[in-house]
């Protein structure tokens, strides 16, 4: 089947029940999107579908007909730039494994809510687990990115 990944159509030779996560990682070599739990509890597998954060580990490729998937490898735009710059500038990552998902969720938040307060950050990021507990820096980086977007 064919799906749109990072702006171009990609042919997939997998069973239609295959979660997008494994199609991305194993079949397309896009390994920036991570496996953490497989049941949409940790958020490490977050991608943007039609601009909104989605857990790719519970999204079968059969659900992607006509939809547009963007992964950490190709995410772009002012929110993405601001978020990733803040993430590097504040040295958010520790082990780094969950950070692709954290970043995709943060971008998704800022696209809808460009100036989130602490509660909005808590609500948006509640689905992303970081076992290193980099949460204070994640919060600071989202605020910093919002400031950048403000111009």
């Amino acid at each position, binding site marked *: 089947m064919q799906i749109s990944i990072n702006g171009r159509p990609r042919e997939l030779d997998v069973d239609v029940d295959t979660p997008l996560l494994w199609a991305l990682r194993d079949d397309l070599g896009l390994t920036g999107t991570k496996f953490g*739990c497989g049941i949409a509890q940790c958020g490490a597998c977050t991608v943007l579908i039609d601009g909104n954060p989605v857990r790719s580990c519970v999204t079968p490729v059969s659900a992607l007909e006509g939809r547009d998937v963007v992964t950490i490898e190709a995410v772009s735009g002012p929110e993405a730039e601001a978020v990733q710059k803040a993430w590097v500038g504040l*040295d958010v990552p520790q082990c780094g*494994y969950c950070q692709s998902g954290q970043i995709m969720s943060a971008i998704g938040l800022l696209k809808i809510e460009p100036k989130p307060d602490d509660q909005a950050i808590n609500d948006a990021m509640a689905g992303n687990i970081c076992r290193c507990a980099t949460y204070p820096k994640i919060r600071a980086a989202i605020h910093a990115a919002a400031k950048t977007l403000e111009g």
Partner: protein
Amino acid sequence: MNLHIPQLTAGPITSRRNVLKGFGGLLLATYVPMQGFAQEAGAQKPAALTPNAFVRIGRDDTVTILSKHIEFGQGPWTGLATLVAEELDADWSQIRVEHAPGDAKLYANLAMGAQLTGGSTAIANSYEQMRRTGAAARAMLVAAAADAWKVPAGEIRVSKGVISHASGKSSGFGAFAEAAARMPIPQDVKLKDPSTFTLIGTDLPKPDSFAKSHGQAQFTIDLRDPDMVVALVARPDKFGARATSFDDSAARAVKGYLRSAIVPQGVVVFAKATYPAMKARAALKIEWDESKAHALGTQAIVADYRELAKKPGKVAEARGTPLDKISAGGARVVEHEFVFPYLAHAPMETLDAVVKFDGKTAACHFGSQGPTIDQAAIATTLGIAPENVSIDVALAGGSFGRRATAGGDFAAEAAACAKAFGENVPVKLLWTREDDLRGGFYRPLYVHRMRGTVEQDGSISAWHHTIVGQSIMGGTPFEKMMVKDGIDTTSVEGASDMPYRVSDFQCDLHSPTLGVPVLWWRSVGHTHTGFAVEAFLDMLLEKAGKDPIEGRLALLDPKAREVGVLQAVAKLAQWRGRKAGDRGYGVAVHKSFDTYVAQIAEVMRGDDGAPKVTHVWCAVDCGVAVNPNIIRAQMEGGIGFGLGHALFASLDLDDSGKVVQTNFDTYRALRIGDMPKVHVVILPSGEKPTGVGEPGVPPIGPAVANAWRALTGEAVAQLPFVRGGTA
């Protein structure tokens, strides 16, 4: 700007160990000649200078540090590079970091004699070694420049990556890389006076942040190869059960499924990709032999341990006659019991490893925390010599202790899978989250029984501490070193040597044996001893009518380093007592791995009735602060890790011995909304640096317990605070 993109070690499955083989005889224990590296690495990169096993200087002026410690979040890449760069007088923007491959001769942890990351030793054991390495490389560059410029070496200056001479001559490192490589390796180098440090003690950007923020960092799970086979192991429900037979007729319908085989850990399923392996595994029918399996539930274990705790165990430390005093103590006796659950490490990247076995040699690539152990485990499994096992160390998505086991458990399992597959292709073993949480190697379950006496004058006259729990070190190769006279030091560390001056004292230990595999877990024994000591002491001080800070200070030797962090944290938090309005305040101080940490927690009752921790103040004394930003981050991370488990986490066994919590829906992790605001102060110190990866963990649990008791009057008897998975 890509200055901080590290040269990541992932990629096609090749072994850098072969590169190292080129060295042949070593001139020095740690320093090796560089030509071997230059030949191999030179194929694609500019001829690299490798003044020793730890530093490569490229013609492009880049300086690549080989980290003998694995980076899984605690910052050794930055730390070791800082030490080298400081003495090398490199500019930080030149610095790249890679993992050193598995080779104990070159890359041993000097505190352990094996290549192993743990015990918060990365900076402590490398402080001199990495600085000497940088100084030696600098001297060789200077010697090469002196030769070329025909000036005395003593007149050459090096600063921020630039070699210069008063005559006006000036150069980057790259131009002298090859010439420097031919210089004799200095054996006696002078290190900088700490007052002249320019990098150590400053906040340097981390070399791995960019890649980790752009999906470019490669972890074991990210390794790909056209011939790669994915292996998942179907595991028994109970520890100690073994697979006797399997039926894969349903699995054969799964596209991409290859075959299955019995391995010691269960039944391994091979497939061309991960999802087919998962589907095929779910379709297997397996017969298990549970005759030797562990079949005791948490409730029964706790009941047994409580019974045991009523009697003193093997004495770890004793002075005076505490038991007599307590027997005669009457109303002056305070007694309390703490129950600590099994805990899983649950690093975000589940366990995984890639092994390629050609029948004679094994090329392995994974986040190996203890390459020396893993090499031995893989070699034993495959029936080959350890020197025929190469390990390229990959970044790992967290560990918290899990990636190092005494027997190299998952490394051996990966080798067993590769052997079972029987073809010379890379086999990638992957654990799912359910495998991880059901897979054992937990922080042991403990029961602590505490008794103490408080005299009329408020003094604490006797202290009796009985600990019950499985030994982590018993039955492992570490037993000889770590278990003395029946006492596993990791069961009592932080309790038998608690810093408070109580005249009559006893700490004793029961170490029952159970079939549940256990393991060190971020801060090891201190995870429970620190809690028991600090929460119980707080109860005694309350009975004595003493302020928690003043009371602790009065019990400490005035020269103890606990005093400094206690005073610093009280000042930082503007300590005014245990309660103010709807907020409770609790303090705890604990030394682990020679680092001293005091924390004060501010706690409210949350909407759900559970403790809501709003602020944590933290003071840390870890000697010289090499990377203050990483120290702060590790305190924050340690607090979050300790807090999440104290509040929410329990790994329980049902009455038949099966694990109850199998994913993050029930093994609840701290989330962003649970994270308090954290304020950290680092004490200035000229002492040798000590670790920070673990010591932030122990104080937070008791600080919260003490704050909760101050607020509500309830003394916590069982962790976690919130049971039942969700609240």
